[in-house]
């Protein structure tokens, strides 16, 4: 299970880089990106505002996901805890004041109608709630709780990568785009949140088991015999 960690981090870093690279098209003043062209069919009530907020969302996401991956680094935590703290504060601020609010606005025009809107709003709400709880836990010195909530934030940011990969697979299988879009949104949003909870419970029970075993071992220590 432990070997999966670098694989997942590498895949997310690669996915984040691919999304950022593909997002250059949003900053071309002469052209609409294919994603924006789809929105023009709606039509949008305020095209300029939508594109401006989309750009803000793209920049915030391009920073937040790699930053979250960097914040996982145990080396950074051990060798430069101040950098971890400041990068965490900055990432939290970006998530709370740029990424989530822009995401909420964009979700109003999401593909898939209300289900699409609710899916993106749920993901944004998890990010906001988990960021606030994670910061509170860190300030209270509850690092296990802090870690769990920060994993929730990372998991929801990872939805961007997972859902795009799912959309690619769905297109190859010629599935209906709108249905595939909703499935590739809801499945990762719920799945990632459930995975983090499962890992938290698993780690907690493992810790309980370990501390119980440790206490049992300590109780078997007898003078002159060491641990049994």
């Amino acid at each position, binding site marked *: 299970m432990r070997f999966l960690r670098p694989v997942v981090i590498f895949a997310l870093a690669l*996915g984040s880089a*691919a*999304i950022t*690279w*593909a997002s250059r*098209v949003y900053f071309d003043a*002469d*052209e*609409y*990106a*294919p*994603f924006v*062209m*789809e929105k*023009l*069919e709606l*039509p949008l009530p305020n095209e300029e505002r939508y594109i401006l907020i989309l750009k803000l969302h793209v920049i915030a996401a391009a920073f937040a996901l790699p930053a979250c991956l960097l914040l996982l680094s145990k080396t950074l935590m051990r060798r430069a805890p101040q950098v971890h703290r400041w990068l965490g504060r900055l990432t939290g601020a970006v998530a709370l004041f740029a990424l989530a609010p822009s995401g909420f606005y964009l979700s109003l025009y999401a*593909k898939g109608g209300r289900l699409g809107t609710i899916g993106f709003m749920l993901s944004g709400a998890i990010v906001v709630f988990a960021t606030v709880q994670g910061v509170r836990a860190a300030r209270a010195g509850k690092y296990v709780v802090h870690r769990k909530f920060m994993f929730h934030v990372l998991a929801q940011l990872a939805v961007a990568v997972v*859902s*795009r*990969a799912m*959309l*690619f697979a769905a*297109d*190859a*299988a*010629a*599935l209906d*785009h709108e249905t595939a*879009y909703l499935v590739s949104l809801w499945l990762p949003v719920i799945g990632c949140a459930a995975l983090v909870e499962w890992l938290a419970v698993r780690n907690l029970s493992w810790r309980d088991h370990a501390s119980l075993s440790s206490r049992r071992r300590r109780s078997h220590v007898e003078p002159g015999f060491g641990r049994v």
Partner: protein
Amino acid sequence: MRHFLLVAVVLTSSLASAGSSTTPSAVALVNERLIQPLAAKEREQSKFSRAALPPAARRVRVLDEKPQQDSAGNAFFSFAVDARHGWAASEEGWKKAAITGCVYPASGEVFIKRGNAFHPAKAALGKKTKPAPDATCHATAQLSAR
């Protein structure tokens, strides 16, 4: 492979339509002004996007047997472009009329429908365009076959 398939289907479509006396130039124009530039543009498009991915193939259907005439007296044909996604090549895989529009054989202009308006074909490539005049692609009379 996808683009080889795309070109193959477009060519097949053009040849299939060549039996009709009125549509070959219209189909060829739509291919030249819309389908080919669109395919070239889509080759550069990222596959890692929330936008719908480009289709594996497209085919052009001219909807009018005879040209129609707009209020300015210009003859045009309406067309629809079907698109197919995925690897399966069955008929059910085709999405009908993924793009609709009209083509003016005399001037060579191609327009696509977006919302309630018609735009020049380059709008399909993402270029910022203004809607065509109201008369564009709206028939006032159907002309006899030339």
